[in-house]
Every structure is written in C-alpha cells, then in structure tokens.
C-alpha cells in the first residue's frame, strides 16, 4: 500500500498537478495518432474534387487491383442511411450519408474510402479511382444562396435555407419607438478553424462473426459516435465499443461521428477484420472536418436617455456550408445568449442558417457565441455612446441579476456578472483610462458574456454517470463517461471524488470515455463536464462513502448519520473525534467478516428544457456562467497595427475546482479569441480553401501573446459540485468586442468586420480623418 500524499488532502480549490501529466510531459501517453495494431491497414477517404456535382459512376476496379490494396468501399457498401448531430429534436434535418451516393456538395465530400498496407500504396490507389461527375453550378456565398434561382444544394430545401429560428418575445417595435435613441448596426464575422494539434484520427476494427465493432478514437463525444455508428450499422449500442484515447484537443471539432469513423469499420469488415487507421492530414483537418459559421449580424435597438435598454430587433445569417451538422442548436445558441447577460424583455431576431457549397460549419468553442459576442457587445457600446453614457455604467444598468427568470424563460440562479464587471474595472484602472489616453492612441474597451453548462438540445436527457471503485489497498478508480480532450476533466473530476470521499487526491486514478466500461456521458461540449459529470462524480463518491460508513457503523454499533470521512479519517460528527483512519475503514470493508466491495455509483441529469423553435423560449442549462473582459490597446495610425497591451478577464466560475486549470482554460480561450480577432480567417475561393495550412492560417504564437490577467469570481452555484460552474468556452466570447471598443476609445474608429487586419484599420482611419492622419 502506497502512502497517501498529505498535500493533496481536501483537493478541491487546490492547483493539484494533472492526473495524466507525467505521461504527457515524458511522451509516454498514447494518443489515437500513435496507435499501431498488428496487421493494421492505412485508410484514406475518397473525396470529391468538385464543390457541387452529380455522381454518375464510380469505378474502383483499378484501385482494387493494385497490390497492397485490401478494401475499397463506396455508398454501395455503406447503404444510404442518413445521420446527423441534431437528429433527436430535428429528425427532418438529417442530411448526410456516411458516403454520398448521388451528389457531392463541397470539395472534400466523401464518396468512398480505401485501405491499403501502407501510406504510399493508399495514396497511389486514391489516384486510380475513376469517378464520372456531372458538374453542377455551385453557390459559395450565403446571400447568393438565399436568392431565388440559386443552385439548389439539397432537394426540397427552399432558397437553401437549412434552418430558420424566429425568436420573438414581447413587442420590440413598440419599445424601440418609445426609445430616446435608436441605432442599427451590421457586423461581419469570418469563418475559422479549430486546428487541434492532433488531427482527426480513428482506428476501426470489425469482428465479422461476433458482430462486434471497436473504434479507437480522438474525440470529445464517444457515446455520440457509438449512437451514430449503431444506427448506420443497424446494430445494438453494445455491439459498438468506442474507446477514446488521449486526445490532442477538440474545441468542438471532434464532436460528431464523421464519415471516416464509419468508413474505417466498413473497410475493416471488407478487409477481413484487420484494423484500419484513418488519420487526417493537416490539409484535410482544415478542409474536411468542421469550420466556424461565418455570419452577418444585423441589430437594431432602442434605449432611453437613462440607459434603459428597451428593445431589439435583428437578423442573423449563418453560412452552414454543405450539411446541417449542429445547425439548429448553433443558431439557438448564438441568438439566445443575450438573455444571459441583459435584462431585455422585447426582442425579435430571426436566424437563418444557409447551405453553401463549402465545407461543413459546425461546433467550435463558443458555439455561435463568439459571433454574437462581437455583434452584441460592439452594438451595446455604440448605444451607450449614443446617449453619452460610460459603456461600463450602461452595462451595469442593464445586466441580469442573481435569481431571476429571463424573458425567454432562462432561469438564472447564481450570477456574478456585476462583480465581474466591477472587478475587471478596478484591476484595469478603467475609470482613469477610459477616454483619457487617445493622445497616446491608446484605448480601453469592455465586453461581457454569459455561457451555458450543458445543453438540453441533443437527447431526451443529458445525464452523466460515475462509478467510484475503492480497492483493497485504498487506491481508488473513478470511471466516467466524460471525455478529457486536454482540458483536464479527469483531474477536476478526480479532485471532486477525493474531496467528497474525504481522501487524498494522490489515491486517484481516472478511467474515462470507453463506451464498454464507463458510464454514459453525452460528451465534452457546452462547458458541461465540470458541472454535470462533476455532479455525477460527487454522487458516486458519496455513495461509496456511505457504503464504507455503513460497515464502520455496523461494526462499532454507531449511528451512520453521525459518521463522516474527512481528510483521511472517519470521524464522529457529534464529538468531532477521529474513530479510525480511512485505510482501516477500507480494510474493515474487505475483511473476513464483511468482504464488501466498495463500488459507488452516481448519475446526474440537470433539470432543463430545450429551446422551443417557434418562440425561442427555453432553459437549456441548469445554471449560467458570466464574465467581463477588458482590453487595453494601442493603435499605430501609420501601419494600422493594433497592439493589445493587456487583457483582463474576470470570470464567475462558481468555484474553481483547480484554479491553475481554470486560469489555463481562460488563457487558452483568450489566445483563441485573439487569433480570431487578428489573423484567423479561413478563406474560400469558389468553394476551395485558400489557406489550408499553418502558414496561410496563422494561429497565435508565443510572440503574439499579450499580458493576461485572470480574475476568478466564486459565486458558489447552488447546483454545482462544490459550487462549480462550467467555464471552458466563455473567455473568447467578448474578446473581439472588447478590442473593437478599445480601438474606438483609442482612435475613434469603429471596426465592424472581423478580422481586424491593418488594412481595415487604415481604411477606417482614412474614412474618418482623410488622407492626413495626424491624430
């Protein structure tokens, strides 16, 4: 038996090291990309070179004849079953086949796959696939796609409009009419890529006789993959085992079953059961996974002179690319967020998600909140400016409060937004800087945001289960369905288990996200894991503790209600006296007399409701997290370059289970936000990605990172495990607006089109000040 580490007793709130850290810093951890199995074949997807075309004929004979090629598949092998990620609530919108049989709708669309003995043979075979296409006219711009007469991408979809979400609450027209100041703005948000460091990778194996599939995968939601795989294979859920290995980032990009996952298993079946590995190249990762929805945001609002936000109307148009993916929920997510932060009772915004012949738009960190964050938070500053009010004061007047029900029926319980705003203002010295540094071309700007922790939009339930297994030697396993994709959930969940069980974190090991052995969890998205899986962990630990205490009580003839385990000791609550050590108590459970295995179980399902797509009402999350972000910038009026001098992010995280991890999430999110603001712009020319590499698509590098200060606000949420809330995504939501607002404070120009490149800054300066920019 190992000695427990005293440092890690009562671990909640401590920055304990990552549970998987040693493997990661020594290179020993095996990612899906690292897996080699006996007889493993290399799989490749057969992709369309055209953005829009009808498939006339696919001839695979030459490829099949190439020595070393073990299997080639097309839609004939996979069937014409359609799958989709929003299938549960929107079955009519399911529009993608594992391999397309009739039409291709973007460059990269999958029509087949092949497996060969090595990379070189597989590449050679790809060139031997003969496909006859009838080229169809494509449409690449969402506004063009909506026009009557535009090429139709999917059958029976009028004007290529995939989803319409009309949010209509109160009477915004009347309220805007009654306002003292009204303005209208249009904002443009570009597309972007996740760029996980590990590309999409899977290894599929099909056992013909036992009818069993195993899929090893780099993923955020293995249970979701299992469900889609079982559907496409017409198998039972437990015929499909999806094992998530160490995953090199996700950010929303690894949240769906992709054709590659299905294809690897069909290829394995056809190749006689040998495992087939498909790993995306970096180019495929940029062009054939998922991308951010580029959006146009039109907002019109009215305010009273005293700063009261009266009503808002608007329109959101989102470029969905070739298929539905998470279209409906993303639209809901981008529009509904305003109700988390502002007490607005009258709002009408209609969202349109439009098909184009471009790669599929889907989930990416913030889930539409980055686009709405830029539009809404820029618009709010402009409204404040219109009535001559400090933008921070304007926000403080209109923000949501603790324990309220928003106009769209969101139920807000803990809410530290006011504290977030005030803390960020104090830390940044807002009052002494705002409007006072324009002589230096410096400015300071603010943005606020709210975020969910879970979403009732994917299944009838969104539960997460946990199992705590206390071994005879007092080492502890925690089994969870939640996927750690690098964010550190295995660590945070283990901290919660150790805290609740009253033991040191050093006893913990975590086994996660294997559909055959861990309990169910919907996946790592919507910042839900710490909150929902955390509650599952807490309940499982509590159950395990009760089992131990029951035996102690029985053995010593004590009242179990008077017993607890705290800091490695069984204690009597009434006398505060230690009765026996945790180790002794466990020994008793496994003793000659009792022989009772300690297996604690927990399941948590938050009480929430999906968004009603006729009205926009619903409470998708059991609680909400909040933040205020302030950016200080300096604008070089000669070359148009914006330098961020510092970012402050004040974040209501409920309770920081692991403060260092929480800070790191915020910092990583801020970096991603900065990338979107300044350089990340996934470009397409006639449907072809023009910058599918790290040279053309610049993500933030070490030299691009400004000083960042994270300020953690702990509101102790009544439903959160130890009060914790989700927080992984929110930090990048207000970054663009905070910077745009700071730029206006610095040099008086208003940037409404992302990314903020020097040429756009120079153009705006020229428009405002003419040729002679001597500010």
């Amino acid at each position, binding site marked *: 038996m190992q000695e427990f580490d005293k440092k890690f007793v009562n671990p909640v709130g401590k920055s304990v090291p990552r549970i998987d850290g040693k493997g990661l*810093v020594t290179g020993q951890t095996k990612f899906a990309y690292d897996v080699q199995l006996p007889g493993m074949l290399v799989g490749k997807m057969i992709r369309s070179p055209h953005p829009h075309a009808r498939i006339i004929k696919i001839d695979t004979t030459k490829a099949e004849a190439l020595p070393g090629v073990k299997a080639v598949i097309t839609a004939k092998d996979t069937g014409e079953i359609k799958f989709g990620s929003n299938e549960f609530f929107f079955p009519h919108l399911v529009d993608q086949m594992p391999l397309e049989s009739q039409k291709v709708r973007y460059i990269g669309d999958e029509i087949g796959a092949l497996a060969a003995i090595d990379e070189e043979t597989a590449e050679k075979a790809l060139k031997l696939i003969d496909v006859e296409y009838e080229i169809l006219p494509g449409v690449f711009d969402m506004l063009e796609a909506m026009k009557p007469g535009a090429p139709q991408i999917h059958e029976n979809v009028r004007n290529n409009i995939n989803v319409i979400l009309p949010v209509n609450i109160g009477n915004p027209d009347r309220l805007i009419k009654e306002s003292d100041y009204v303005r209208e703005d249009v904002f443009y948000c570009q597309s972007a890529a996740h760029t996980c460091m590990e590309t999409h990778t899977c290894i599929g194996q099909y056992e013909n006789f036992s009818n069993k599939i195993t899929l090893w995968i780099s993923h955020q939601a293995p249970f979701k993959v299992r469900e889609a795989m079982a559907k496409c294979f017409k198998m039972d859920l437990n015929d499909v085992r999806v094992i998530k290995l160490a995953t090199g980032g996700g950010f929303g990009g690894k949240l769906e079953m992709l054709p590659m996952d299905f294809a690897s298993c069909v290829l394995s079946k056809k190749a006689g059961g040998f495992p087939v590995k498909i790993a995306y190249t970096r180019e495929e990762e940029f062009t054939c996974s998922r991308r951010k929805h580029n959006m146009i945001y039109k907002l019109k609002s009215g305010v009273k002179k005293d700063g009261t936000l009266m009503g808002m109307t608007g329109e959101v148009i989102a470029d969905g690319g070739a298929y539905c993916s998470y279209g409906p929920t993303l639209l809901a997510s981008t529009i509904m967020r305003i109700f988390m932060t502002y007490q607005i009772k009258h709002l009408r915004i209609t969202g349109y998600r439009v098909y184009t012949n471009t790669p599929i738009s889907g989930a990416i960190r913030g889930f539409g909140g980055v686009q709405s964050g830029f539009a809404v938070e820029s618009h709010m500053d402009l409204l404040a400016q219109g009535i001559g009010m400090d933008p921070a004061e304007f926000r403080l007047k209109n923000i949501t409060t603790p324990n309220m029900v928003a106009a769209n029926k969101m139920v807000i319980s803990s809410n530290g937004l006011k504290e977030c705003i005030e803390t960020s203002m104090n830390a940044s010295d807002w009052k002494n800087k705002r409007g006072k540094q324009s002589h230096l071309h410096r400015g300071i700007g603010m943005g606020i945001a709210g975020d969910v922790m879970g979403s009732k939009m994917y299944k009838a339930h969104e539960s997460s289960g946990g199992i705590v297994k206390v071994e005879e030697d007092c080492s502890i396993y925690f089994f969870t369905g939640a996927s750690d994709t690098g964010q550190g959930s295995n660590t945070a969940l283990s901290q919660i288990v150790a805290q609740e069980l009253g033991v040191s974190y050093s006893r913990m090991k975590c086994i996660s996200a294997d559909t055959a052995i861990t309990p169910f969890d919907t996946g790592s998205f919507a910042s839900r894991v710490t909150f929902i899986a955390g509650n599952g962990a807490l309940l499982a630990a509590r159950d395990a503790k009760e089992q131990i205490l029951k035996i102690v009580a029985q053995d010593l003839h004590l009242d179990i209600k008077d017993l607890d385990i705290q800091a490695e000791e069984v204690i009597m609550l009434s006398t505060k006296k230690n009765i026996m050590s945790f180790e002794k108590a466990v020994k008793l459970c496994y003793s000659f007399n009792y022989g009772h295995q300690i297996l604690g179980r927990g399941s948590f399902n938050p009480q929430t409701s999906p968004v009603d797509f006729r009205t926009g009402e619903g409470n998708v999350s059991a609680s909400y997290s909040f933040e205020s972000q302030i950016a200080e910038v300096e604008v070089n009026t000669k070359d148009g370059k914006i330098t961020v001098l510092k970012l402050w992010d004040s974040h209501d995280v409920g309770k920081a289970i692991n403060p260092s991890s929480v800070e790191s999430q915020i*910092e990583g999110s801020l970096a991603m936000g900065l990338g979107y603001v300044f350089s990340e712009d996934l470009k397409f020319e006639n449907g072809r990605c023009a910058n599918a590499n*790290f040279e053309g698509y610049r993500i933030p590098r070490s030299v691009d990172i400004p000083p960042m200060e994270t300020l953690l606000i702990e509101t102790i949420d009544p439903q959160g495990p130890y009060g914790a809330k989700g927080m992984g995504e929110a930090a990048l939501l207000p970054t663009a607006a905070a910077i745009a607002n700071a730029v206006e404070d610095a040099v008086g120009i208003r940037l409404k089109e992302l990314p903020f490149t020097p040429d756009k800054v120079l153009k705006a300066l020229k428009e405002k000040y003419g040729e002679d920019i001597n500010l």
Partner: protein
Amino acid sequence: MQITFKLNKKNYSLDLQGHETLLEVIRNLLGLTGTKEACGEGECGACTVFANGKTVLSCLTLACDCDGYDILTIEGLSDGQTLHPIQEAFLEKGAVQCGFCMSGMILAAKNILDQNPLPNLEEIKKGLDGNLCRCAGYPKIFDAIEEAGKKIIKAK
C-alpha cells in the same frame, strides 16, 4: 542505405531506403511515439528533437542525413528515474493541457535554457516562436520555463 546514430544514448544501426524522414524513423521504425506530427510541413514544431545539440524539425529532416548524429527525443530527456527539471516545472505550473505539442515544446524549452537558464520573457517567447500550442495559450508555458531555469541552476 546503412546509417548509424545515437538516440537517447543508445546506438542504432539502420538499413533505410533513403527517403524516410527522421520523424518516420523515430516513430514508425523505432516505435518512439513521444515525438509528434501535427502538420508535416515544418510549421508547428510538434516534431522537434535535438540533433547534435541543436533542435531540428524531424518532419523536414531526412534520416539518412543524420548518420553519426547524437539525437535526443522526449523519451531521453529524463534519466528514467526522476523527471527532468523542465518536465517537473511544466507539471507544477500547469503548463500542460492536451499535451500533443508538449514533447516539442519541452525540447524547445530545453534549447532556450541550454543557452541561458535565466531567460527573460521576450527571450522565452522568441525561443518558442516555432512551437504551436492551441490549448493553453502559452502564459503557463512561459512561467514553467522560467521556473525550470531556476531549478536547473539550483541543481548545479
């Protein structure tokens, strides 16, 4: 083509076709998967290894050009008993998220600290310019390198 090199203090003699990259040899032939590939084009730094005391991008380096070289990968950084001070510092400072960039990042950190164990922030940033991290946003990596330098000096 016959080449020999030292890798993580062990001698290897390999028969290569000639076109293999150092990364392919390390990962596929020798089974050391700590060194990662994230772009294959020399733009991300995930495949960073040391060759004759200098960092190189193993995805752009031909293995046959490394004949007689002394190569170090992440697997050879610690003595197998205790973590190297850089690895320790990365854990203590919470610099690791998904970890896929970590092997390259830690070796890039070693390169910085080999030159100057007390680098300032600008030197750290410049030294990491070729190593992409998408998760952690770098600040905790900067802290970890600073801390590792202190540990290295203390150990001497």
